[in-house]
């Protein structure tokens, strides 16, 4: 029963129905919650968005073009800058792709080390998410808890590779002879630093403990639940058709993990579970990532217990030329599916290298998922997608 007066007015009104507030709100490119230089052009009515248009490209570095003028070893140094939060994991699929074209396989020990470091990259990436996501919702404290643990993992990564963000550690046919600090000059062929295994085991215990701590602090928080449950629901079919992958896809209910179905690293020898979400809301995406940290710890613990001995490097020519051919290798990276479609004509560098990065596809669902969302939910939803702008723009 609407009021007669209102009815009368609306009938008499001009034909165009105007909103109270058809305001255009520019979120970014400089904004605390856009993880870098992303810009959202949102048309909002009050606090509700009617239309959202993401604008990207502020970080476009043209890696696909650059790789056409680089040799294979040089490419390794640039691609770990794509998703800088999990630099190591970016190198692996590319190296595997090149190895496949060359018909070379890395020795077991090298593969296991790659695997351990990939999982460490995953932990560190997810911990960044654990730190930043509550912060975006206003809780500052979990940040410090999570970053403390990330520091531990990064220290381990550094002790092996010498780099915290951009390790440049993989070689075609194996991994780099290990860097180590100290007065002694290390010879080629040196292995992982001494004490690494024990430290890792110790660190994993602490990470697991911190996971529990974060879970207590965040998951038990009514406000956090209210902000994330049933917010930004992403059905699995929509997610898949947008190419959303990784934890975001699994949070929507797909139990799909490339580590289980692909053989780019020897994951089949490990025992681990794939956490799967129920509703595909922000909460599930948070929970899946937390669980994945635990599973990664599990994998790492298994790996360092059974690290095989073998050389670190397969035999490859000094000047690497990859035979003609093309292949696509994809890997389960922390952010999702990362893949390289490598086309070689037999030269020193690829003829064409298509870089499939996870965040690009994960972000492309934004116009769909942010439609009719509230501005505060923008932050919750964007944060829960866990993208890195370098990974979006390449």
């Amino acid at each position, binding site marked *: 029963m609407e009021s007669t*007066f*209102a009815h*009368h*007015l*609306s009938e*008499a*009104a*001009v034909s165009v*129905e*105007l*909103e*109270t507030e058809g305001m255009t709100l520019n979120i970014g490119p400089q904004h605390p919650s856009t993880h870098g230089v992303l810009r959202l052009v949102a048309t909002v009515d009050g606090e509700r968005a009617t239309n959202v248009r993401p604008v990207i490209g502020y970080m476009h570095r043209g890696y696909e073009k650059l790789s056409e003028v680089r040799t294979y070893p040089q490419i390794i140094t640039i691609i770990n800058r794509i998703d800088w939060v999990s630099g190591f994991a970016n190198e692996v699929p590319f190296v595997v792709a090149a190895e496949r074209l060359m018909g070379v396989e890395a020795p077991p020990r090298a593969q296991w080390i790659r695997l351990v470091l990939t999982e460490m990259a995953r932990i560190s990436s997810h911990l960044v998410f654990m730190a930043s996501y509550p912060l975006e919702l206003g809780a500052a404290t979990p940040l410090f808890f999570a970053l403390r643990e990330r520091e531990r993992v990064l220290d381990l990564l550094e002790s092996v590779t010498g780099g915290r963000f951009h390790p440049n550690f993989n070689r075609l046919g194996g991994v780099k002879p290990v860097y180590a600090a100290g007065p002694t000059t290390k010879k080629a062929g040196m292995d992982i630093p001494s004490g690494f295994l024990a430290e890792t085991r110790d660190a994993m215990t602490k990470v697991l403990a911190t996971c529990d701590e974060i879970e207590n602090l965040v998951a038990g928080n009514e406000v956090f639940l209210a902000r994330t449950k049933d917010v930004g629901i992403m059905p699995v079919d929509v997610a898949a058709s947008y190419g959303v992958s990784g934890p975001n896809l699994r949070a929507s209910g797909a139990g799909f993990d490339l580590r289980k179905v692909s053989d780019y690293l020897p994951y089949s020898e490990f025992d681990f579970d794939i956490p799967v979400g129920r509703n595909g809301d922000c909460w599930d995406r948070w929970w899946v990532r937390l669980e994945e940290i635990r599973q990664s710890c599990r994998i790492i613990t298994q790996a360092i217990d059974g690290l095989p001995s073998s050389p670190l490097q397969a035999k490859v020519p000094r000047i690497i030329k990859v035979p003609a051919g093309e292949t696509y290798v994809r890997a389960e990276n922390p952010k999702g599916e990362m893949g390289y479609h490598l086309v070689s004509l037999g030269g020193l560098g690829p003829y064409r290298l298509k870089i499939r990065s996870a965040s690009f596809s994960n972000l492309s669902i934004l116009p769909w998922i942010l439609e009719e969302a509230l501005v505060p939910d923008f932050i919750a939803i964007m944060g829960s997608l866990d993208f890195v702008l370098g990974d979006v723009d390449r």
Partner: protein
Amino acid sequence: MILSQFLVLGALLFSIGVYGLLSRRNAVTVLLAVELMLAAVNINLIAFEAFWNTAAAHGQIFAIFVITIAAAEVGIGLAIILLVFRNRASGNIDQLDLMRW
């Protein structure tokens, strides 16, 4: 202090309100002018009460009634203005002649 000074002040304020009521084009400002008039009334009420010191504080009670009614009036008035704005994209009262035949 004498009573007249308050009454004159009230009259002045009321007249200003009348001016605003009649001359303003924007509906919100018309409402503001009405508030001024009500404030003038309140001053008179309180002044009378203070000078004829009744034990039961009738003047104050009525002033509070006036304030309450004014609050209600503003609520409704703003709602109407909002509605008009939404439908006509204008807060101008002289376009508001729909009640005309």
